[in-house]
């Protein structure tokens, strides 16, 4: 069907014009477009409301004047600068820890069969099903006993040893040819140099894929940060935004839209700039 139409356009020209097929294709394009507009409509609305005066939030007039006033009002109404900093620190900390911990663990699983390796790997995979947010009641208790409630570390800690990351990197490391490893060993590479000079560089696309999924996940994560934080100094953007919108009780859609765009802005812009890498990364991360 689709592959045929792409592969052999010449053939299609020679055949008499098949009106039904042509109409079908036009219908498909139309359906795709309707669906696409439907899908971005919340974002389009946010763009409209955020860049126009409040008076135009619910009336759509192409002649409406543009303004940045809503962004200024939102910025002044809540400590967004602090929230940005918190989220940035959080996401960086989690990513760095995940890269180190998952690399070490994945290396052990990929390269060696040792006593208990199958059982341990199964125990790691449990986290794919039972994610930390499901166990929030008990994890909150643990954090309280560790004296970590309301710290950035407490938001990140349950996610640092990521089963998903270990799984992905193990797959990538398994693809490294044994000959390369043998050659490196002959040259006198120890285990550490083998890991940092051979395995890690060869798995670079997997690191990119995992990094992008991890950053988007933790930039957007809400429930666990909501539970474990209670001051401006630790709250990430998502929690800050929810408090901001709850206080305003949906009175001023323009300012809420501006705040919404602001807090998803960096990730959204990164996504628009590197959309191919993003989609390929999510795809790569999903195929096990």
């Amino acid at each position, binding site marked *: 069907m689709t592959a045929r139409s792409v592969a052999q356009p010449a053939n299609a020209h020679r055949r008499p014009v098949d009106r039904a097929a042509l109409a079908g294709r036009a219908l498909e394009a139309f359906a795709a477009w309707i669906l696409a507009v439907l899908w971005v409509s919340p974002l389009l609305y946010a763009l409209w409301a955020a860049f126009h005066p409040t008076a135009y939030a619910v009336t759509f007039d192409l002649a409406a004047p543009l303004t940045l006033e809503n962004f200024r009002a939102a910025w002044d109404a809540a400590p967004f600068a602090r929230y940005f900093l918190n989220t940035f620190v959080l996401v960086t900390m989690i990513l760095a820890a995940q890269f180190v*911990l998952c690399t070490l663990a994945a290396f052990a699983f990929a390269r060696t069969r*040792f006593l208990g390796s199958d059982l341990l790997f199964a125990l790691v995979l449990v986290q794919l099903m039972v994610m930390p947010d499901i166990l929030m009641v008990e994890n909150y208790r643990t954090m309280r006993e560790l004296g970590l409630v309301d710290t950035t570390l407490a938001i990140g800690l349950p996610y640092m040893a990521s089963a998903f990351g270990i799984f992905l990197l193990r797959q990538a490391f398994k693809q490294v040819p044994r000959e390369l490893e043998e050659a490196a060993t002959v040259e006198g590479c120890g285990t550490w140099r083998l890991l940092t000079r051979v395995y890690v560089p060869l798995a670079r696309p997997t690191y990119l894929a995992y990094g992008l999924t991890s950053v988007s996940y933790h930039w957007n994560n809400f429930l666990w940060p909501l539970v474990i934080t209670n001051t401006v100094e630790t709250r990430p953007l998502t929690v800050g935004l929810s408090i901001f919108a709850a206080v305003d009780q949906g009175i001023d859609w323009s300012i809420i839209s501006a705040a919404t765009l602001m807090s998803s802005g960096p990730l959204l812009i990164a996504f628009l700039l590197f959309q191919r890498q993003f989609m390929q990364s999510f795809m790569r991360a999903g195929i096990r």
Partner: protein
Amino acid sequence: MPRLRPATRTTLVAWLLLSPALVLLALFTHYPAIATVWRSFHSTPRGARPAVFVGLENYEAMVADPIFWTSLANTGIYAAATVPLSMALALAMALLVNAAIPGRGLARLAFFTPTVLPMIAVANLWLFFFTPGYGLIDRATSALFGWGPTNWIGDPQTALGAMIAIAIWKEAGFFMIFYLAALQAIPPTLYDAARVEGASRWTTFRRVTLPLLGPTSLFILVNAVINGFRLVDHIIVMTRGGPDNATQLLLTYIYEVGFRFWDTATASALTVVLLVMLGLLALIQFAALERRTHYR
């Protein structure tokens, strides 16, 4: 230092490499899962009163609690609606943007955008869409069908449906890319063969495309079901489980009982129910994978 046998050395190095990750996993996944079960048989410690063993009391109270049953039923409805609808839409989207239509790059982008937007941010936007009277959805329904204002998220009849719609909107584009990857991996020769046989487009889809998407569908299914249990951010900010618990799911109820009422014993019993459901899901997935390997 005595020289170790190579096998012993390998095992030691492996354990050393694994230990940081394993410690954290044990601390925040394995231990809390077991502790939750333990805690569910004890009372909630309050002030100077420590927790005492109460046997099945928490479970008896849970079974007698109508909100528990409402949340369980809602979780079932939520998953049963979100999973198949988002998967079907994902497949439709993938087929549409895999075809040679004009502007398919933009369409693909549009479908995928909800994946990178925070659920909390989009909840605010959807709140506006669902506003009775001047919200975009009411304006559309009044223009198209002449309906009056509907309080979509304030009415127990429609609130859960509204939450499901948002979840589908969020998920479909994410699942689309897996279908897209699978579609692009199908060898074109198969379609050539189908064409030579004179198969119609529908037959080709049903007999060639669909069976080859089986493993991808299983993968998406498992992820969709897990998300069906835990995609609750928008519910917590938009309805807080209301009105009248119409959008109360198991996880939102755990949050409410655990962190609004601070009744950790009951929250633990509720969490055990969720853990059992996830365990069953793991078993089903395992069985499905087993069967697939037997076929090969």
